[in-house]
Structures are given as C-alpha cells and as structure tokens.
C-alpha cells in the first residue's frame, strides 16, 4: 500500500502542483516569474521522488481501488523521469524566454504542469479508456500552450490545425478502443492479451481493425510518416519553449504508451511489424527530405523530430515482447530529449525579442560573439546527428544493435544511411556559426541567467547520458 502510494507520488505531486498553480494564478500578486519558479519546484520535487522509487518488474497500483488500470514498471519510471526533467528545463527556459516576449501569464506554467500530469498518466495507463483520457489531458494542455500568443497569426493557425487533426486522432483512438472492446470484451491490456493468446490475433477482424485505428492515433501523435504533415507548421507556430516541450515530453509519453500497447502480445506485434517497418523507413527519409529544404531553424528541428520518430519506430519494431523492459527506447528518448531540450533552451535566449532570429543565416558568426553558447549548440547538434562520444551516438548504437539482434538488418542499415543524410542539416548550422562572417553582433544582454545555465547543464547531461552505460 505504502509502496503503491510512493510509486504514484510523482503523479500526485504534479497534479496537486498544477491545481495549486492554477488557484494561485488568480491572485494579482503572483507574477509569471514566480509561477515559473513554482512549476520548476514542482517538477524538481516530483523528479526526486520518482528517482527515489525503486521498482523492478511490474507493480499494479492499488489493484483493488484502481481495478488494475495503472501499472508502474521500470520503463514507466524511466519515461516519467524524462518527462519531469523536460518539464523542469522547459519551465526554466520559459522564464528567460518571457523576459523578451510579452504574452505570458501564470496560467501558462499551470498548463505545463497539467500536461506533465497527463503524460505521466499515459506512461502508466494499462487500459484504453484511461489511455484516451490521459492522451486528451496532455493534448488539450499542449493545444492551449501552442496558441498562447493570441496576437500571432502563425500561432493561431498552428493551434487550429493541431486541434482539428488532433481531434481526428482522438476519434480514431476511441473508435479503435470500441472495436477492441467489441472483439475481446474488455479494454484492459491484460484481458486483451489473454484474449489474443487464447484466440489468436489474425482470427478476429474487429481486433485487427481496432488495433489499426489505435496505431493510427499513436502514429499521428508521434508524427510518423503518413501523419507527419502537421508537425512542421505546429512546431513553427508554437513559442520556442513549448516547441521543445512538445518535441521531447510529448514524444516520450506517446512512445511509452505505444510500446506498452504493442508488447501486449507477440502475435499482435508480429501482425503489425511489416507495416511498422515501412512506416519507420518512410518516416526517416521523408523527415530528412523535409529537413534539408528548410531555412528556418525551428522548422528544421521539427522535421528532424520526424526523423527521430523514425529511429524510435525501429526500436519498436525490434522490441521483444518477452521480458519487455523498454530500456533501448527509454535510453534513446533520454538522449534525444537532452539534446533537443538543450537546443531549444539555447534558442530561447539567443532568439532575441519576438523570436527575430529564426533562420540559419541569422546565426552566422555566433561563435565569435558567443563562443560558449555556440559550442553548446554544436554539442547538441552533434548529439542529434549521432557523433561519438555524445548521448545521441550511444542511443543510435543501441537501437541499431537491437535491430540487428532482432534480425532486422535492412532496417539497421537504412537507419545508418538516414543518420548520415541528417548530418547535412545539422552540420549546416555549425558551419554557419563557426565559418561565416557575422552579420550582427548578438550584442544584447542575456535577459536572465536561467536558460544559459540550463543549456550548460544539458551539455553535461548529454555527456553524462553517453557515459552512463559505460560506468554502470
């Protein structure tokens, strides 16, 4: 009982913190700076509590009262840690970002914490209706954060697109859940697995259709190939810290629930593995093509997010349903989150007022006036490209070796090819920063030290995550 409470504690802290922030933002005295510190505190405390929880195997939380709908495992714990860290760094970089951009109110931070509570629920949910509600908690909060700048037309367009398409994805998920219920008589993952084990996956059309619609919803949220079109516009329209949060926290939560659903049963996974193979390949290469054509840095990072979804899909294809730990996926997510968050942290103070610097050309000659920041951004870009000794390299290494172990050699080779292509647009920024003459001086003072500090902490994280498997 106490153990269950401790495992649930991060979620309780985040939920209570969000409600507290919401209530206190009604007071005039609470400035949005204070709200930023408050939300960072909530994330930090929840992170430490999550870290202190030791867990091996699956623990069904409050199996009596909760009817086995929430299950904590080492995978959900790792995903929770990544999500909470993403929240912490996003809160910090938002603090700096809103010194230069003027559309913040304390509710912003409350919504960010609410989104994190949805993400944490999503990592633990083991039942389709709970998954749907957790997904909507997360998505609704993110929609509002995307459209927070109401005077900005691009941001309004982004939120409208995202809301419409996201509603479609939600509808697909409910329809899929209804079909799965029709076939198996339950929406609980355990019961579905029992049914599949007893009756087989391919024998029940309703189950195939249901899981198809559920996968469509997940692939949409994870921005995989046929459903990737919204990503570039939405990431571009959102403010820099929110884009970073979406690219990391949201993706972590989606892949956690995606993996949990897929490893229900071996025949369910093998039924979809061929399609996931092609989706992974197309996601990587289409993402690369989009990223190469971009002039805006945010749009390039959005497209490179699609490519990273492709790598994570490789990990899903290669995942083994027996003794599933999700360590490869969690490790890659951590490595990807550290470098992506880092670059968005850096952009939130380098971007200037109103995000005036946004294209590759705007960052020409950054290394001369801001050598440390340029070095940090280079580390993040190299990590995303997968150059040793960064975390991104180790993450890709694990994914590719796990694909080879699972017999997916073609996929592993294509992953390496895609990763080489992606050097093009990562190195382009580095070349612009180091080998081009400066067109402007980046002279203005940094408005607050929080985002730069976070950027350098994340540089340390990138190396620490890469050393973690070597040390342990």
């Amino acid at each position, binding site marked *: 009982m106490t153990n269950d409470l401790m495992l649930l504690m991060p979620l309780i802290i985040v*939920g209570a913190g969000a*409600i507290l922030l*919401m209530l206190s933002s009604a007071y*005039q005295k609470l*400035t*949005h700076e204070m709200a930023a510190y408050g939300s960072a505190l909530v994330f930090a405390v929840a992170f430490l509590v999550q870290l202190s929880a030791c867990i091996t195997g699956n623990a069904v939380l409050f199996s009596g*009262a*909760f*009817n086995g*709908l*929430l299950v904590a495992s080492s995978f959900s714990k790792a995903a929770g840690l990544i999500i909470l860290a993403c929240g912490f760094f996003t809160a910090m970089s938002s603090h700096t970002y809103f010194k230069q951009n003027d559309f913040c*109110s*304390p*509710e*912003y931070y*409350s*919504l960010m914490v*609410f989104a994190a*509570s*949805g993400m944490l*629920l999503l990592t633990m949910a083991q*039942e389709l*209706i*709970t998954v749907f*509600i*957790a997904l*909507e*908690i997360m998505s*609704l*909060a993110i*929609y*509002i954060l995307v*459209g*927070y700048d*109401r005077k900005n037309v691009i941001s309004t367009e982004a939120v409208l697109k995202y809301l419409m398409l996201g509603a479609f994805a939600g509808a697909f998920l409910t329809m899929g859940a209804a*079909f799965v219920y*029709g*076939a198996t008589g339950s929406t609980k993952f355990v019961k579905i697995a029992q049914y599949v084990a007893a009756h087989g996956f391919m024998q*029940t*059309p*309703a189950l*195939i*259709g249901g899981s198809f619609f559920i996968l469509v919803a997940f692939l949409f949220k994870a921005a995989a190939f046929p459903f990737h079109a919204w990503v570039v516009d939405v990431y571009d329209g959102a403010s820099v810290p929110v884009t970073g949060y979406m690219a990391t926290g949201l993706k972590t939560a989606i892949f956690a629930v995606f993996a949990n659903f897929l490893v229900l049963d071996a025949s369910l996974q093998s039924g979809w593995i061929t399609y996931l193979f092609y989706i992974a390949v197309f996601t990587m290469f289409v993402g690369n093509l989009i990223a190469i054509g971009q002039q805006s840095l945010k749009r390039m990072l959005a497209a490179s997010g699609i490519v990273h979804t492709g790598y994570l899909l490789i990990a899903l294809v290669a995942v083994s349903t027996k003794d599933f730990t999700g360590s490869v996926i969690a490790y890659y997510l951590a490595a990807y989150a550290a470098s992506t968050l880092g670059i968005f942290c850096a952009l939130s103070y380098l971007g200037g007022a109103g995000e005036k610097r946004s294209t590759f050309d705007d960052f020409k000659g950054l290394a001369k006036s801001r050598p440390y920041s340029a070095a940090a951004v280079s580390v993040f870009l190299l990590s995303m490209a997968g150059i040793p000794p960064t975390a991104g390299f180790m993450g890709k290494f694990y994914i590719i070796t796990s694909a080879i172990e699972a017999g997916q050699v073609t996929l592993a080779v294509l992953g390496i090819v895609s990763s080489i292509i992606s050097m093009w647009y990562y190195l382009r920024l580095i070349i612009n920063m180091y080998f081009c003459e400066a067109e402007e001086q980046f002279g203005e003072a940094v408005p607050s030290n929080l985002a730069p500090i976070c950027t350098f902490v994340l540089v340390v994280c990138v190396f620490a995550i890469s050393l973690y498997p070597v040390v342990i």
Partner: protein
Amino acid sequence: MFADGLFLGFAVLAVLGAAGLVVFRHPMNGAMSFVVTLISLAGLYALLSAKLIFALQLIVYAGAIMSLIVFIIMFLNIQPSDLPKEETKLVYILGGLAVVLPIGLFLAKIVKSLPLSSTAILGNDFGGVKQVGLLLFKDWLVPFEIVSILLLISLIGAVVLAGKKEAVK
C-alpha cells in the same frame, strides 16, 4: 421484429443527420441536422436497455450542448454573405467518398464479424442509475477521476484563449 425496425430507423436517421451536418451550407442547418443524429443515438441506447445513458443523451447532448451550439451560432450572427463560396464542394464530397469507401467496406466487414446481440429488454435494473453508478465508482474510478482534470484544463483553456487580454497580467 419491431425492435429491429426501430433499430433500422434510428440508424438511418443517425447517418442522415451526420451527412446533413457535413453537407448543409449554413451552420444553423447543420446544427439542426446534428440534433437528429443525437436524438437517434439516444433511441439506439434505449434499444440496448441503457436507461441512464438514454436520458443523459437527451438531456445533456440533445438538450444542453445543442442549445449552447445554437447560441454560439446566434451570437456570431452569420449572414449568407459571410459564408465561403463552395463551388468545388461536390468534387470534394465525391473525392472524400472515394477515399473513405475502402475504409467503410473494411468497417462493414468488421461489424459483420461481431457476434449478434438481441434487443430484448434486460432485467436486473440493467442500465439504471444505481448500476451505472456502482460500475463508475468501483471498476472505473481512475478514468472517472481523471476526467475532472481534463475538464479543468479545458476550463483554463477557455479562460486563457477567449478571455479579455487586458485583465491578464
């Protein structure tokens, strides 16, 4: 037999109402056509002996939510000149039908494979307030509780996105 006829009637009405929602040009006509769908759905719930859901569907969806939608359309005061010209509408509808058709056939196949269910009235107070309440608070406590967070977020979202900006510091 009578119940089968009712089912067919409600099902056809529900689909027609949904089609009308998409096809009608003026939002008010669309909203009215949507009411037909909601009421026929209530009929379908009643055929399944889901008494409480039937009542809730009528009161909440066909009643409260529809009147909100109608109010909003009234507030916006849409004139025929405000509506976009939809000259290529027919092409879009036909194209959409062609795209959706395979999915529809697939769905029909799935639905056919589902076991038949009878429309006989179930006893034991099935679908009553007490039964649904017990189920909601015993087996489905987690979803029931986290829905409140979802509603809270939409509340904040409405205030943040639609509220007066001057009041926010």
